[in-house]
């Protein structure tokens, strides 16, 4: 398996007045293509910051972020937009669907930004929502909304799926469903999936677990035999 993502001594600082806050302090790691990665750490550790940097939502103060051989840290605004459009699928804690569009429209929306023909209904079917295609987000349950959001993210066939606490707003049963779905994506389609979570149990299902604390890598471990999400002891 080849290396897809590489962080080299990445530093992220937030300046507010005279104070400089180091949210990311010399972070280095690699992620292989198709890996199912779980990022763990206490609140404020810098997990979201890491994901945002990787997703091209924010730029690093220092260091290198290499994705598929390209230096993301050197991208300008347009290149970042292009990068997000083609490589990154985002899944948020609060789904962030477009309220004015139906489920299927939310998925087909991606046609506008990538050169892929998307069959919204087919993608929704893959997340088990074929019966809710014409409902608006406000008419769907949280779990359903999150599945639409996953459908939206995978529809454009990104190289990686970045999920920031995707189950944070869901009950555990629904959460398992979502995580299961994400793991399947990773296994079946060879999509790299990176999940930020507070739930340490998920670590057993991951190919790789990155633990961070105070903006630094505390530990990186690799599971040779990751369990299936369904088989975990919730």
């Amino acid at each position, binding site marked *: 398996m080849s290396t897809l993502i590489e962080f080299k001594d990445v530093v992220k600082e937030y300046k507010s007045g005279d104070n400089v806050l180091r949210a990311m302090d010399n972070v280095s790691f690699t992620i292989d293509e198709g890996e199912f990665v779980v990022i763990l750490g206490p609140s404020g550790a810098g997990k979201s910051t890491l994901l945002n940097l990787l997703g091209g*939502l924010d730029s690093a103060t220092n260091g290198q972020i290499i994705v598929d051989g390209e230096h993301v840290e050197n991208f300008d605004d*347009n290149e970042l937009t292009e990068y997000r459009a083609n490589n990154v699928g985002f899944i948020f804690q609060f789904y962030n669907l477009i*309220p004015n*569009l139906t489920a299927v429209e939310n998925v087909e929306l991606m046609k506008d930004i990538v050169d892929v023909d998307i069959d919204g209904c087919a993608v929704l079917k893959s997340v088990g929502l074929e019966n809710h295609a*014409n409902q608006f987000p406000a008419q769907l349950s949280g779990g359903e909304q999150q599945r639409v959001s996953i459908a939206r993210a995978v529809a454009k066939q990104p190289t990686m799926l970045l999920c920031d606490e995707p189950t944070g707003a869901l009950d555990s049963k629904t959460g398992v469903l979502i995580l299961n779905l994400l793991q399947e994506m990773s296994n079946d389609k060879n999509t790299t999936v990176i999940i930020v979570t507070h739930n340490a149990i998920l670590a057993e299902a991951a190919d790789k677990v990155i633990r961070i604390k105070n903006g630094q890598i505390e530990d990186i471990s690799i599971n040779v035999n990751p369990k299936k999400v369904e088989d975990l002891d919730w």
Partner: protein
Amino acid sequence: MAFLGVFVFAGVGGESVGLEVNSNNFYQDTNLADGWIYSANLDNDFVDKVNNLSSTTQCERQLVIDSVGNFSNDPDITLHFVENNTISKFYLLEGEELNISDADGVWIDKSFADAKDLNVGDNISFTFNGITVEKEIKGIGYSPEYVYHASTASVIPDFNKIGFAYMSYKAFPMDNVPYNVLNVKFDGNAGDYDSLLSDKLAGDYNSFVEKAEHSSVSQFSEEMDQHKMMSGIFPVVFILIAMLILLTTMTRIISHQRTQIGILKANGFTNTSIIFHYVSYGFWLVLIGSILGLIIGPLTLPQLFYPSMSATYKLPSWQPVWSMDFVYVAVLMVIMSLIVSYLAVRSISNENPADTIRPKSPKVSSSGFVEKIGVWKRLSFNARWNYRDAKRNKFRALMTVIGVMGCSALLVCAFGMYDGMNDLKEWEYSQINHYDSKLVIDEDAITSEINDVAEDVNGDKIMESAIEIEAGNIKKSGSLLVLNDTDLITPTDYDWNKIKIANDEVSISQKMADLLDVGVGDTVKFHIMGSDKWVNVTINKIHADPISQGFVMSTDKLDDLGLNYTPTSIVTEKHVDSNYSAIKSTSSMKDMTASWDELTESMWLLIYILIFFASLLAIVVLYNLGLLSFTEIEREIATLKVLGFKTGALRRLLLTQNLWFTAIGFVLGLPVGYYILKIMWESSGDSFYILPSISITNFILTAIITFALSIFVNLLFSRKIKKLDMVESLKGVE
């Protein structure tokens, strides 16, 4: 905004109320006559008879006579030899009061004195009926009978060429003064007095002119009417605009405070105290704005109009006057804003705090009809999003449309005025009148002299007279134009097509026909001013003329009617410089168009003000509503940005909606603007006939400005989109 609304309202209002009050004061101070009785023979007997009429309260004789001042340009000076100076008194500005026992003094008009650089103590001489008198200027001032004073040759007074002078009857070179005008004051209305006169004193006098028909009084009151109309329509439009702007601003500010309100509520503040807090916040702002507008409006705006008016009209004082109406409007404005902010705050504070703290969640919308039809599937995501967004925010959509509508209506109105003024000029001075010079014939000139001049300049004689027309029970004053077949004056229809009026035909102008509610085939009666011979005519044709309303007929027809043909002007293709004794004054086409341009100067100002406010309206309303919607959809925009949408695509998303609303507002604004324009032209006075229209160029310009403003506002948001911090905006809810 409240300030601007009240400012314009009180300013324009103050101007027009000021005109009315100033002129009324002037008329009152100088005891302007209620009517004038003209007669060649005003002996004591007649005066007694008038005095004996029950409603006469006061009367006074004078001799009014035209003279030529002793200056190189032979100015026309109207002399008034007064028996007393208690009615239509001379209003003194410099020197001493008019003294009836002073036989050597003359009191002359200020504008003429200024034009000729004359001062109290100078001598001046006049020639009339072959007699020359020389007098010492004892005083300089104004007269209520000369607020507007222009020669027959041009609408714009040229004070170098005309003037008036008052003297005591004692200054008259002969013992017996041949008085010819009796100034009267009376009780009751002028119509009754007129019939009383013709009843009791028939045959003893020539004619009676009431105050409202006096040329100076009527011209000025027509001008005032125009201003009143202006101060009627525009301030109302501006108040509406201001309220619209206020409404959107208040809603924007308050919804911005949404989260704040939620937190206050969560912390135990009562609904009432929150509502009170926000409402009073808006209240003070609007109150202060309104008060400032009330004070500054009347002080500044009239100063924009008065200077150009005071060049034409002579009043001793040009003071804006304040009226209680302005306060009422300001109060209305404040109350409106109170209601608007109350409603806005209440709708938020009635939600439960948990919901309030988060941004407003969109209402669930059912799929409407449009979504069900086939086309929907083919619409782009952009179109679908915008359609639903508009559907969900009907208030915002409506306000945007109304704002744009107001903007385009105002623009149509402004450009329509511009075109109307230009059309009028083109129509009157190029399409109807083709002569180069117009020579006004002296009243004393004899026929052979006149014919000589006409031959010399190779010109055509015409007769123009003021007439009064009556149909049913409507009476209107107008003008009569008598001409023989000439290429120099060609009447047209309302489409500017030349029309032929045959020798035995009478044509009435469109506006006059409308005013009298008559048409071809109807019979109306008229008389020439100064004569009481009424004649009946049957209308054969209808022509249209932008500035003169009445009849056009041939000399033969005039003869047929039993009226005397007395030519009043000669028109010619040639440019005439030379002086003729039979000619009182000469004016060229160039002079006339120049004076027209001068007359319309204050209109331009109005047009610029309109365009400015139209743009302001569009920008503020679009910006307010745009911001309102932007804060609501910030999260969506951030999401789309994260998904990889380019700034351009997102800007187009917002632009699409703006453009749609702009298009709808624009289309709706057109008829509204046309309608306002129509009302304006219709109320521009009985003598004007202008069809509301707008040229293609200006129509396109209106469209360009409207859409450019919309796109400009959109660009303000594209900067916001670019700077939008995705991480921050998505963090929002947590």
